[in-house]
């Protein structure tokens, strides 16, 4: 039986935005979130400031959450996950269960939006030896966000503010040996943002970013990159690090300063690995259950990317956000809007036809 309800899988920024828009249209939505709280990765991984405008991530996400909850036609189910799906566009039969608890409640929906997001690359897998599992002072972008949010950016092994901090870009991205050949799009911006935040919170710290390329699209160039260099004196060095090893009570990073053409070996207190994006477990599960084609990297495959960025291989199922590949927050919110529109239009058209 056809349905005018839209199912949204994932309660992060993409899912919340889509849910709010569906609700604003007065249409019915069910939002299924595996965790016990909404907000997705920005909340779960304690993001500090957003990479765009430096707004508090928690404050921004709370706004989205409040907006989604404010709509009476939006049914939010926490601690729940999709376990089964059959049917076609306009008439999907799904089962929603308590997370980890097999048997589910059968529900009829007209369209589905997959907003299951990404996970960070695990640095234990990389071919360069960055020592994330050897040294506590090697951290990831997510570990850094948490410390910055708490206004307690310290050298983990000592508990004191660092004197020298560096970022290593492209960890787990742009790498044929690991297999994640793509660029994760946001890490250059995030690292520069974090570098600024560190310089703000720990004015005595010297901060370096070791990069292959600095990807500063559009207004990131003048809003983030230029101030990082000019106001905050973040040192950008074109040359990626080969390994990290302990020397004395600090970490030694080895690289080449390619523009100066010299090998370099310098001590650091904290090393931040700019780990890239990979499809989350939720994304991979959703693809399997919904029968969605995945691309080479196991993200949801979007067949006609430039003109139809939210389409999947199955009509009636749309994707929003990093479940489709590396996305920044602008992309995610735009996709959420487009997916919500397409999903709502689909069920509305169906109702008109039926009437």
């Amino acid at each position, binding site marked *: 039986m056809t349905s005018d309800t839209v199912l949204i899988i994932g309660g992060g920024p993409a899912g919340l935005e889509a849910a709010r828009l569906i609700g604003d249209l007065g249409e019915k939505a069910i939002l299924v979130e595996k965790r016990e709280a909404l907000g997705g990765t920005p909340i779960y991984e304690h993001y500090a400031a957003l990479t765009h405008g430096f707004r508090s991530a928690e404050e921004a996400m709370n706004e989205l959450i409040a907006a989604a909850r404010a709509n009476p036609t939006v049914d939010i189910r926490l601690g729940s996950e999709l376990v089964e799906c059959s049917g076609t566009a306009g008439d999907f039969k799904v089962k929603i269960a308590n997370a980890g608890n097999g048997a589910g409640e059968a529900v009829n929906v007209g369209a589905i939006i997959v907003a299951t997001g990404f996970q960070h690359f*695990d640095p*234990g*897998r990389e*071919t360069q*030896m960055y*020592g*994330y*599992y*050897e*040294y*506590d002072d090697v951290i990831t972008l997510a570990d850094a966000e948490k410390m910055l949010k708490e206004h307690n950016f310290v050298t983990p092994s000592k508990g004191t503010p660092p004197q020298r901090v560096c970022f290593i870009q492209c960890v787990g991205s742009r790498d044929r*040996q690991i*297999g994640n050949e793509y660029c994760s799009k946001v890490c250059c911006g995030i690292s520069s943002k974090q570098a600024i935040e560190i310089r703000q919170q720990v004015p005595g710290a010297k901060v370096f970013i070791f990069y292959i390329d600095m990807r500063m699209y559009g207004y990131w160039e003048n809003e983030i990159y230029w101030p990082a260099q000019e106001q905050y004196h973040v040192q950008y060095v074109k040359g990626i690090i*080969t*390994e990290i*090893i*302990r*020397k*004395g009570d600090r970490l*030694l990073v*080895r690289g080449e300063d390619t523009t100066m053409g010299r090998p370099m070996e310098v001590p650091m207190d904290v090393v931040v690995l700019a780990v890239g994006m990979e499809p989350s477990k939720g994304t991979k599960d959703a693809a399997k259950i919904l029968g969605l084609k995945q691309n080479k990297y196991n993200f949801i495959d979007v067949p006609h990317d430039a003109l139809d960025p939210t389409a999947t291989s199955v009509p009636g199922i749309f994707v929003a956000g990093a479940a489709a590949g590396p996305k920044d927050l602008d992309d995610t919110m735009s996709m959420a809007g487009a997916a919500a529109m397409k999903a709502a239009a689909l069920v509305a058209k169906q109702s008109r036809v039926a009437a």
Partner: protein
Amino acid sequence: MTATAGIIPYDAVNTSSSRKFERMAEYAPEDFHKHLFELEAEGEWIVQRVPEPYVEVMTKYGRKKKIPLELSWHHKSCGQCGHIPGYSTAIFWLNRKLNFKYLDPTDQTSCTAWNYYASATSNAAAQAGVAMRNFAAAYETGYYPIIHCGTSYGHYKETREELLHHAELRHQVRDIMRKLGKAMVMPEEIVHYSEWVHVVRDRIAANQTRDFSQISVAVHPACHYYKLVQEDAIYDPDIYGGQRTATVSALIVALGAQVRDYSTWFDCCGFGFRHILVQRDFTRSFATLRKIQVMKDEADPDVVITHDTGCVTTLDKSQFVGKAHGFNVGVPVMSDAQFAALAMGAHPYRVCQLHWHSTDYRPLLEKMGIDHERAWAEFQDDLKRLKNGEKEYLTWEDVDA
């Protein structure tokens, strides 16, 4: 420059990190064995299987590798046999002491990779031809090849990749093998002897007669062991948290000695292939400044242990000039095999043949509780008997006395 001042020896083997890495099977790269056996099914070559008994170890991305315990055909190393023969002698001695059947063949050529990397007076087909001839020779005896040199091992792993992926090269080599009347044989695994030492380290420890608890070690991992075909090298979650190769370090731990870290662990020794023969200022400068001096300054170990011919040679022989120039050098260097043999009570001269080594090893022997003066006197007696014609050669029976 005193070495001991202010050194806090750092143990990296047991990482102090609060994090534990969980390897997930879904990210494992493709296993070359699939292609290896496909080619066998198509009649392109015979895959010589690893004989039982064997032990399975974990490699870098989680693939299990089979390491045979015995029935090994020993593919010898030029530099070991030629310049530091205690190294190969110790490998054979360990096999004998642990009662493993092995073969020391005369139907074996050098892998010729030292010359190849030094002079490039060879090419892919010749190198592959040399490899396959040796593999065929092993196969003909029914014993399984185990490689002594780190460079032979790395080179043969590369050769395997080339033969797997390039049919034209494979067919060119097959034609040459036909002319030699030899089969095309590729071993199921290419095994380095230090991988064998790794899997029998508990047996070695069980037979240990000398106390190594006061011995501190700096480990130098061979570039060609773990940087060539990186996925095919031993890694262990309990050693360096699985983030660095476990080979050699795990043995040291099993023998009760202390592994001390230093900040140039990942650096090459500076051997250079060509450089150590005709451009030696590079080799001795690199070995002294980037390896030995750093090890002395930061770890001050009793001994440097490594698992490759070139590395032992470079690190041992380069120290003479370093000393003459007042650098902080003077730490003995030997292989894991010689170290293990000493642990099991081997004679430092009859078995480990330490008189071929350059940097003074006597303080180390004293720390191991070995009366090296008496041992040297015993060896001098052996030499006397050889000199006056009483015996022609020193034999295994003499050594086990």
